[in-house]
C-alpha cells in the first residue's frame, strides 16, 4: 500500500488583534491508501481547522503559516485556485459538518448534481447513470432528484450530500463530524453505509470527529489530537486495547457503555483547551492527573510505541500506567 496523503510540519493559526493565535502546531501525519483514518479531538483541539487546512479551504482569519499537504504527489497548499478547483470532487472531496444544511435550498437535487458535472466538464446526459448508481449506494430512491432539500428528512439530506460528494468517484474523502445533528438510529445506519461504500469502492477516508465512540467503531487507524497536536496515533486495535497516552486512556475509560462497569479510578480533570504558546512543556499538562515536574520542562516528541505504526507523545509512558 502506498501513501495517499502526507501532512508535513503543518502550522495553522488565527490572525487576531495581538498577532496570530496558533491552533495547529507542527502537525505530521501519513495516511495509507484505502483505509479509514479517524482523527479525534474535543473542542479547542483544532480538528475542524485541521480538516479545512488539509482541503485548503480555510478562510480568513484562519491562515496556514507553514507546512505541506502532499496528496497524489502534489502539495495541495501550493496549488493555484484553478488547479485546486479541478481536483475537488474529482480526486478528493470534503463532506462538511452539519452536512444536511449544505444543499442549496432553492434548487432541485437533480439540478445540483448536474451543476457538479457542469463544473468538471462532464456530459450531463451521459452522467445520469452515475447519479443512479451513487444514489443506489447511499440507499436513496431516484425520486429525491425532483425534490427540494427542505422536502427531505435530515438523514436523507445527509445521504444526498454524501452521494453528491462521491458521484465523481474521488480517491480521498474527508468527513468533518459526519453525524452531528442526526438521530441515533439514522446515525448508525449512515455510518454502516459509509463504511460499506468505502470498502466497495476502496477510496481512502479521513473522518474527523469529537465522538470517540463512533470513531473507534468505523476507523482502521486513529489519531488523537489535543490542543493542536497529535497525542497518540496508530492502528485502531492498538489504540483501543493498550493506549500509551494518558488522554486516550482516560477518555476511553470514561466513555459510558451499556453493560460495562462504571469506571471509578483516576479521572480526567478540567475542560479542553486551545494550544498554548506560553506552555513550553506538555500541552496536556493542565489536565493530566499523572503529570510530573519533567512534563513542565520538556515538550514531548512523538515516540514509537508498537512497531512502526504506533506513536505517542508522553515522557511519562509507561510509568503512569496502572
Amino acid at each position, binding site marked *: 500500500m502506498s501513501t495517499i496523503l502526507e501532512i508535513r510540519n503543518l502550522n495553522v493559526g488565527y490572525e487576531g488583534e495581538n498577532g496570530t493565535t496558533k491552533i495547529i502546531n507542527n502537525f505530521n501525519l501519513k495516511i495509507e491508501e484505502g483505509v479509514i483514518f479517524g482523527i479525534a479531538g*474535543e*473542542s479547542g483541539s483544532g480538528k475542524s481547522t485541521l480538516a479545512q487546512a488539509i482541503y485548503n479551504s480555510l478562510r480568513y482569519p484562519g491562515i496556514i503559516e507553514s507546512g505541506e499537504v502532499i496528496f497524489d504527489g502534489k502539495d495541495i497548499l501550493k496549488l493555484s485556485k484553478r488547479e485546486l478547483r479541478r481536483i475537488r470532487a474529482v480526486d478528493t472531496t470534503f463532506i462538511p459538518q452539519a452536512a444536511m444544511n449544505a444543499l442549496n435550498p432553492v434548487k432541485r437535487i437533480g439540478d445540483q448534481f448536474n451543476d457538479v458535472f457542469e463544473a468538471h466538464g462532464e456530459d450531463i446526459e451521459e452522467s445520469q447513470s452515475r447519479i443512479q448508481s451513487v444514489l443506489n449506494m447511499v440507499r436513496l430512491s431516484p425520486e429525491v432528484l425532483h425534490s427540494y432539500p427542505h422536502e427531505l428528512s435530515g438523514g436523507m439530506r445527509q445521504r444526498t450530500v454524501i452521494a453528491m460528494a462521491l458521484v465523481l468517484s474521488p480517491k480521498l474523502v474527508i468527513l468533518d463530524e459526519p453525524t452531528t445533528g442526526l*438521530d*441515533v*438510529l*439514522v*446515525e*448508525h445506519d449512515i*455510518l*454502516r453505509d459509509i*463504511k*460499506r461504500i468505502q*470498502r466497495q469502492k476502496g477510496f481512502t477516508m479521513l473522518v474527523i470527529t*469529537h*465522538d*470517540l*465512540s*463512533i*470513531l*473507534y*467503531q*468505523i476507523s482502521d487507524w486513529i489519531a488523537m489530537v489535543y490542543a493542536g497536536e497529535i497525542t497518540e496515533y496508530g492502528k*485502531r486495535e492498538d489504540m*483501543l486495547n493498550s493506549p500509551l497516552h494518558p488522554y486516550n486512556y*482516560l*477518555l*476511553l475509560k*470514561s*466513555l*459510558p*457503555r*451499556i*453493560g460495562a462497569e*462504571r469506571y471509578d479510578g483516576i*479521572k*480526567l480533570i478540567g*475542560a*479542553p483547551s486551545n494550544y498554548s504558546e506560553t506552555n513550553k512543556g506538555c500541552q496536556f499538562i493542565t489536565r493530566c492527573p499523572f503529570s510530573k515536574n519533567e512534563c513542565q520542562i520538556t515538550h514531548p516528541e512523538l515516540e514509537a510505541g508498537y512497531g512502526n505504526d504506533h506513536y505517542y507523545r508522553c515522557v511519562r509512558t509507561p510509568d503512569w500506567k496502572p
Partner: protein
Amino acid sequence: MTRSESVNALQNVDMELNQNELLGIVGASGSGKSTLARILVLLYRPTSGKIIFEGNDVSNLKGKNLRKYRSQIQMVFQDPYASLDPFHNVEWHIKRPLVITKYDGNINERIDSLLEQVKLTPPSQYRNKFPHQLSGGQRQRVYMARALATNPKVLIADEPVSMLDVSLRIEILDLLLSIKKSLGISIIYITHDLNTVSMITDRIYVLNQGRVVEYGDTKSIVTNPRDSYTQQLIKAAPDPYKKIEVD
C-alpha cells in the same frame, strides 16, 4: 414543529415518577420525549389526560398556582450555550429565582452554597462571570444551580450532556447523581443515548413515536430488551469496542 403537531406527539402515555428516583426517558428524535418534558413543566398543555403532582391534578393550573408548581419542577436544557442569558452574569442567574421565590435567608450565602453544590468552587471566582466566559460544562453547572435555586422537588434534564465534550459528560452525569443523593430530589433524565442512561438511572421508559413501548428496571431492560425498538436503540448505541463490520 408547531404547537398543534407537538400536542399530538404523545399518545396515551402513562408514567410514574417515584420520590428520590433517577428516571430515564429514552427515545430517538421524533419519539416525543422533548414534548413530554415541556408538558411536564406546562409549557405545553396536554389535550387530554392528567398530570398528578403530589396527589393533585396540575394540568390546568394558571397564574400564581402555575408559578408555584413550576418552582417545584425545574428543567435543564440541552444547549448550555442557549439556556443562559448572555447579557447577565452568573450571580444574576441564580439570584432571580431566589428573589422570585422569596428566599428568606441570606441570598448571598445561598448563591455561594448553590455554586458549591454544582462544584463551581470557589464561588467568588464565578459569580461575576458572563456566560461567554465559561466553558460548556461550567455553563451547564451554572444552569443547574439556577434550577436548584427554586428548591425544586423534581428536576427534568433534557439531553443535558449531548452538546458537551466527551470528557465533560461524566462530570455532569455524576453531578446529577450527587444532587439526587444529597438533596433527595427526583430527576428525570431524557436522552437518546442508552449508554449514559444505563449508567445512572434506576428505571427507564422507552418512547417511540409518542408511545411508551417498554418500561421498567434499567438493568433488566438494557440486558434483556423485549421490544424491537429498544433492541434497535441498544444496537445503535455507539460503543468503541464494537467495530462496525460490513461484508
